[in-house]
């Protein structure tokens, strides 16, 4: 008999909207609160999805003893800071990818989680996908012999939008390709990368070669769109 985890959803954007109904489809999770910097967004999201409580202050949300775990669907830039706050409050944390903006931030998060003995995970949902698991299972079972190369890329057609594309193509999209490469090959011995830097100084496009022992390699690419 598993206990039901009482979740707070933080952030009321696209991804929270996508994930909320999926929480409800599981047998062992329940959303009990929602948080947003804007009271209006928090309350309308809660009303719309029938969530009991809403918070416009993250500290107050974390102080709620009836919350076991927080899901962070907030902008990448605040991920690691909010994760750290969650850990300090003794909450378990599921944070949207990327977990942090840099490797050193991620290390800090991991150390803090270990100290407080709380569960922290990046929401790399691809790894839980049944198809993805079947892929890794087939590879392990030798369905394609020894894996020699991987190629994968993540770009999406431009959507009608008010603003120019933002964010790091590598952290928002390339992270999927790199996760796949790591699952198949482990860490690379060498990386060669090129790309396009956008006006915001972030990587708008990236392509990279990851090299492994024995001449194995991966070609990966990611793009957020150029305009």
């Amino acid at each position, binding site marked *: 008999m598993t206990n039901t985890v009482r979740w707070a959803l933080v952030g009321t954007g696209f991804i929270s909207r996508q994930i909320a109904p999926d929480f409800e489809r599981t047998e062992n999770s329940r959303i009990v609160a929602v948080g947003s910097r804007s009271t209006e967004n928090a309350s309308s999201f809660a009303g719309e999805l029938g969530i009991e409580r809403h918070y416009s202050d993250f500290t107050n949300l974390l102080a709620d003893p009836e919350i076991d775990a927080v899901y962070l669907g907030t902008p990448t830039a605040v991920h690691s800071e909010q994760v750290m706050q969650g850990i300090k409050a003794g909450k378990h944390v599921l944070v949207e990818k990327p977990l942090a903006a840099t490797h050193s931030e991620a290390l800090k998060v991991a150390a803090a989680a270990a100290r407080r003995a709380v569960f922290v995970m990046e929401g790399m949902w691809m790894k839980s996908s049944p198809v993805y698991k079947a892929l890794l299972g087939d590879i392990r079972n030798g369905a394609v012999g020894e894996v020699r*190369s991987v190629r994968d*890329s993540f770009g999406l057609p431009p959507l009608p939008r008010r603003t120019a594309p933002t964010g790091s193509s590598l952290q928002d999209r390339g992270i999927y390709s790199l996760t796949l490469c790591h699952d198949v090959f482990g860490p690379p011995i060498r990386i060669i990368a090129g790309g396009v830097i956008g006006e915001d100084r972030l990587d708008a496009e990236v392509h990279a070669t990851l090299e492994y022992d024995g001449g194995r390699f991966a070609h990966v690419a990611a793009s957020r769109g150029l305009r």
Partner: protein
Amino acid sequence: MKWGIVGTGKISRSVVADLGSVRADVVLVHSRVMKNAERFAEEFGVGRFTDSYEEVLASKVDIIYIATPFATHYELTRQAILAGKHVLVEKPMATCAEEVEELFRLAEMHNVFLMEGMWMKFNPAFRLLLREVVAGRIGEPRSLRSSFCMPMPEEGSRWNLHGSPGALLDQGIYPVTLAHCLFGAPNSVYAVGRLRGDGLDLAEHFTLEFDAGRFATGSSSMIDLGEASAAVSGTTGWIVLPAMFWATTSLEIHAGTWERIMHNPERVDIEREGYGYVPMLREVAKALDAGWREHPVHTAEHTLAVFRTLDEIRRQLVAADGQQR
């Protein structure tokens, strides 16, 4: 036009069969081994056969098709040009850019037609790909990925440096040619590969970079199997050339609506003519008829540009190999 065939391997069998479809007159076949020449002549109804290349050069043939081991292409082509023959020579035309340059220089001097048999560029599905890209079907083209990795049969001239320098010129020439067709010559090249002890390249992968961040990733291998399709991505969609991309008869056009792009691409199928060489052979016949000295689809300049890139890939492979030893 009277054709002479030099080399009686698998590729010559396909090409001679396809020459029948364009009503070319194959009058002479050559092999270093008389028995092979005789057997080929008998099977395809070729009137004359020989094991003497001098005899081919001295004959009345107008054009010589050369499909011998790669490492012999340059010398046989050179001699044919000097004898005043038009030449269609299998890919790779030679083993380096310098040789290619020399062959085209001689062809111009002797006023003969010269072309490398880069049949992929004449393939109707390939022509359609280029038309769709130029027409903006996928927005601005941004990247290409393609690979030709296929373990080669253990016998044959491919494993001997006297026959072939390796996988790059045999297989890698296709992804590199495709990249050139889309983006021109690269600004920079990054390549890694594996050389056998004697220098024959077994496998390589490479990234070619072009203006404005456009790029092509590719690979070739004669020891590994690899996914054999190619894809051209643009700002608003992408087009897949299904396996085997170098001879594909279809395109999958991921463009237009989200549904079309992500889930249900438009698929175009074009029936193959003969073994797939007919479109190229038809164009060669047309070029000869018109008195052209090169074909606009695969000119001296195009051929040379591809070889310069191949040379650079090869140079990086050899340099890295030298450091490891």
